[in-house]
């Protein structure tokens, strides 16, 4: 995968196998259970898995821990858990059904280092060093939350564009590759 090379990631055959297993599970149970839309079946690889992989752009080396805010069926957190095997990934979603699905995806694709927490992202007060969030809420809704929950120096990569953080002095935009917003707390 050229994207992986661009992101400085070395994908082993085992990792590719896990991502493939995750993709097959998403195509089957993920879509059937309503975790992904009914029209997504044919575009899971590029629209979901590769897009999830691109969230790794925020870190030169894998972080020790990362939280996925509003993780749904587990994207991008599960893909990051595969390519960052030493990182502890916490998936947070308020829906018990989506949490159950994410747990199942984790099991089916045999992904380790993942914890699924059922909670509203707006009510979890822990501060974190690394956060990702993909299509869970508009970036403009997430920005005050990130302002609160990132440790100084902590980074977040969320889907969205720069207009979401205008006026937020402590969140410095590091880069915004097309549809991702990468920020660091000062």
């Amino acid at each position, binding site marked *: 995968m050229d994207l992986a090379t661009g992101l400085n990631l070395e994908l082993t055959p085992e990792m590719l196998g896990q991502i493939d297993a995750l993709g097959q599970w998403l195509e089957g149970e993920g879509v059937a259970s309503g975790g992904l839309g009914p029209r997504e079946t044919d575009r899971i690889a590029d629209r979901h898995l590769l897009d999830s992989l691109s969230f790794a752009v925020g870190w030169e080396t894998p972080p*020790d821990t990362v939280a996925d805010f509003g993780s749904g069926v587990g994207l991008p957190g599960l893909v990051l858990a595969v390519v960052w095997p030493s990182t502890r990934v916490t998936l947070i979603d308020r829906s018990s059904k989506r949490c159950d699905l994410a747990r199942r995806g984790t099991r089916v694709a045999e992904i380790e280092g993942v914890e699924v927490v059922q909670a509203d992202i707006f009510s979890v*007060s822990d*501060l*974190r060093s690394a956060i990702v969030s993909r299509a869970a809420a508009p970036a403009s809704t997430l920005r005050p939350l990130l302002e609160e929950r990132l*440790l100084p120096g*902590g980074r977040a990569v969320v889907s969205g564009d720069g207009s979401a953080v205008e006026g937020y002095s402590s969140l410095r935009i590091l880069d915004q590759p097309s549809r991702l917003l990468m920020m660091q707390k000062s």
Partner: protein
Amino acid sequence: MSVVALANQKGGVGKSTTAINLAAALAFQGQRSLIVDLDPQGNATSGLGIDRSSIRTSIYDVILKDEAIEDAVEPTSVKNLFVVPATIDLAGAEIELVPMLSREQRLKQALDLIKDDYQVVFVDCPPSLGLLTVNALTAASEVLIPIQCEYYALEGLTQLLSNVEMIRRQLNPRLEVEGVVLTMYDFRTNLSRDVATQVRNHFGDRTYRTVIPRSVRIAEAPSYGEPVEALDPMTRGSIAYRELGREFRRRHGLD
């Protein structure tokens, strides 16, 4: 002065109990010790016999209202042992701190003013990794992690260690994980032994050799508002915390 944050985002692992009884052991051994209760549950406060309804100035007033920390310090029934109490107001502090200037440094700024008055300060953290714990880790020179000898003991520690590392890099370069204390050790079970082995494999020499046994007297002591050593100096729990105190002093070069 050493400022030691007792942190673990799991609840019920022995943070307040260790704060009270280790600080008391050190106080009995002649070290002037202060406990800062940063947990809205206020267990370290009530466990030292401070009536929460009679508190005039608490850690909340110090951090949020810029009251002088000297005014919040209360004596306890043990000579050399003092406490800055917590009240339930603290439960709202995580939210109230968010818009404040230097919100991570409020406790550090307060403690800097009294650093010459005590040999050791223990900060009893809440069971979360929110802004109060960040304040404790920013003010501290070291972190002491109590770990309960039960299943899931190590769960969540990666996030704590990752936050410690981030705070060390960004806010407090001298911060280090000084030690791990095994609590509620049950000598009769394999589980306790297995957890202890796992922790020692992970943390090596940083794990204190003294383990704190599961003990009825330790559990009862807070209801008397006393450290266990004041209540019953010959019980196993008292002996363990005394030994932990000696080990702590050896590590810190305290006479």
